[in-house]
């Protein structure tokens, strides 16, 4: 990821930025780079682009750096940053927007496991209506290759009857239809958009 070219060539008006600003209904030009968001973010210590720098990258139009970072996936959506920003910028919303903006792109190796988790989580209730923790945990462990993650507590969970062996179903399985209709809607909207171009 380290590029040989470290010089920044600002491009303040990118589609990324417009997408993010439309999502949070605020202008990120308001950010005066005080760093309070990073200071309070519980996971900033493990991000390569901290929340303040994400905003900076947006201000300067450094799209590649944003796309290649896992920051928005490491973000816990805890809203600490948004709650404390002196300029009242919804930084958690910025993270959410960046997740949505990059969802169609090929994930970097580091992003993969987060995307996998979300996909599996959604799959776990897409058909039954309700999330199925055990299935999710096992599927994730198998597919991500991180076998030992939850291993230590699984026996305890079983002993306490805290893991159901079979998924619990919602009556009516409404979720399946929701996903179908959503897909239809998104397709229609994409077509409409392509049509206007």
């Amino acid at each position, binding site marked *: 990821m380290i590029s040989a070219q470290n010089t920044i060539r600002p491009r303040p008006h990118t589609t990324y930025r417009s997408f993010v600003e439309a*999502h949070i209904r605020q202008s990120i030009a308001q950010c005066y780079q005080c760093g309070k968001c990073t200071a309070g973010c*519980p*996971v900033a210590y*493990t991000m390569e682009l901290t929340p303040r720098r994400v905003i900076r990258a947006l201000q300067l139009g450094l799209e590649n750096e944003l796309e290649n970072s896992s920051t928005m996936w*490491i973000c*816990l*959506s*805890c*809203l*600490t940053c*948004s*709650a*404390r920003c002196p300029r009242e910028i*919804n930084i*958690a919303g910025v993270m*959410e927007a960046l*997740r*949505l903006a990059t*969802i169609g792109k090929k994930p970097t190796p580091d992003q993969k*496991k*987060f995307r996998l*988790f*979300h*996909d599996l*989580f*959604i799959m776990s*209730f897409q058909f039954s*209506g*309700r*999330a*199925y*923790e*055990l299935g*999710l*945990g096992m599927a*994730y462990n198998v597919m*991500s290759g*991180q076998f030992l*993650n*939850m291993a*230590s*507590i699984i026996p*305890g*969970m079983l002993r*306490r*009857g*805290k*893991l*159901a062996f079979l998924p*619990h179903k*919602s*009556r009516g399985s*409404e*979720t399946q*239809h*929701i996903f179908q*209709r*959503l897909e239809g*809607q*998104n397709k229609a909207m994409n077509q409409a958009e392509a049509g206007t171009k």
Partner: protein
Amino acid sequence: MIETARYAYYPGCCSKASAKEYTATTRLVCKALGIELEESPDWICCGASSAHSIDRILGIALPAHELLYAGRMKLDLVASCALCFSRLKIAAAELKDDDVRKRVGEVLGQEIPGNPDYRVMHILQVLEKHLDRIHLEKPLKGLSVACYYGCLLGRPKEVAFDDAENPQVMDRVVAALGGEPVEWGFKAECCGGSHVFTRPDIVSKLSHRLLYQAKQAGADCLAVVCPVCHSNLDAMQKSIGKEYKEEVDLPAFYITQLVGLAAGLPPRKLMFEKLFVDPMRLLRAKGLA
């Protein structure tokens, strides 16, 4: 004679597995207080932290499904999980937007009435509202409780019902039970949430910080209002202790368990055996069991 209060109730997915004791004691306590909870037979997952990360409309549509149910019942909707509460409340706010409402309606296959006012409450609010109904059989005297709210009850401002940094509702509830809420600075710091799968190191670090701070503040135990937080602070406690080479041993109760205890409900029904960190020694030491 106390009047029964009725609410629509959204248990959330964890209620069927990891948070069985939370749901069970919520029902139990509510029953004891004359609060009726109406659960929708066909409730579905709110999508938690995943749906809104993948598709904005999906993140609203899933919780909206439940809002519509409560709307039909003309009841305020109560959630016991902080994460579900947050998603439901955010969805209720988003539905005020005409365009969003139209799209969500399409996805749900039903029209959503205009100008909707869906009221969402967290179980803490319900408990506080009906505190006067609790008959204190066994005041939690001498029990120092670190109330842990998690990051989502006070944020964002638009949906919060308490201060973002120093919330007080649970402290008031615990005080009303005769317990002693401790002052500590981490009531609303994040526990690591659902990163337990993807980045367990993060959960360990953040939850350890919480446990350590609670203990430092002189707490005997934690009171928790969210299954995700609870699993991180209770189930993971032992492995966190190992990782940080110090045994914590801080029982983490669901707030409903504490209410039940103070109201004199039998310990057996409060399902203390489901907790990973055994609270019985503490309760006996305090003369509460």
